[in-house]
């Protein structure tokens, strides 16, 4: 796997991880666990939270290995594509309304990321 591909997968995985954590924690909240033990049990029995943990660790590992061969000023701004992905996934899965300003912003961030992606 090339370092660039690692960074891209890492960035995408951490965006997906955010969505998983949000959904997993809201599932826990719905069950309304009483007390610390019940809360712990509710969290551990949430497979979305396990998936979040997996994505988080994989994203971190790929980030470290990929960043070894790349400039930090190249890799770090690519993280911002995560906001684009979170916006898209929120619109699709949580049916959140995305207004015109937000779509314009998404386009501008994508343009910026495209420029950076071609800069090393």
């Amino acid at each position: 796997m090339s370092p660039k591909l690692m960074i891209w997968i890492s960035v995408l995985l951490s965006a997906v991880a955010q969505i998983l954590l949000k959904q997993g924690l809201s599932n826990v909240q719905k069950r309304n666990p009483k007390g610390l033990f019940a809360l712990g049990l509710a969290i551990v029995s949430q497979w979305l939270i396990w998936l979040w943990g997996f994505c988080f660790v994989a994203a971190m590992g790929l980030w470290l290995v990929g960043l070894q061969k790349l400039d930090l000023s190249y890799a770090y701004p690519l993280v911002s594509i995560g906001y684009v992905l979170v916006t898209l996934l929120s619109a699709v899965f949580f049916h959140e309304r995305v207004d015109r300003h937000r779509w314009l912003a998404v386009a501008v961030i994508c343009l910026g990321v495209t420029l950076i992606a071609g800069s090393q």
Partner: protein
Amino acid sequence: MPTNLQEETWTAEAAPELTGERAGRGMAQLLGRWWVAFAASAVFVVSGHLLIKAGLNSLTAAPPGTGVAGRILHLLLQPAVAGGLMVYVSGTVCWMRAVSQKEISFLYPLSSLNYVLVAAASMIIFHEVISPRRAAGVLLVVTGMILMNRRSRERAA
């Protein structure tokens, strides 16, 4: 409730405990201001990433034939990498403190300054070459982050 409990043990215990306790409480109070929590998060997140990169740059090669998991473990055992991760995580904690006090739509555009700080610091510390193309990309990302939150900010105002 927990604060009451703390105060009880606090008065009951010996004086040397006092300064540490007071310092801890002072810190919590300091982070209770959104801009302190935000500034701390920016400093920790940026320096955490820089420290990780410094660790990666000064890395000794992993033994040949090491698998991906082994390579990751090898990286994590580098003091600068492990330290950088811890600094970064404390930055995330500060960010959560800031978010709990101030609208996220206000903090997100501000936090995009981290991209500028990281780029500038990488140029100075690691002598990375920031081409006009990369600089323009970073500025567009910052612009996008500001745009993304403009409407909700107007609504809040």
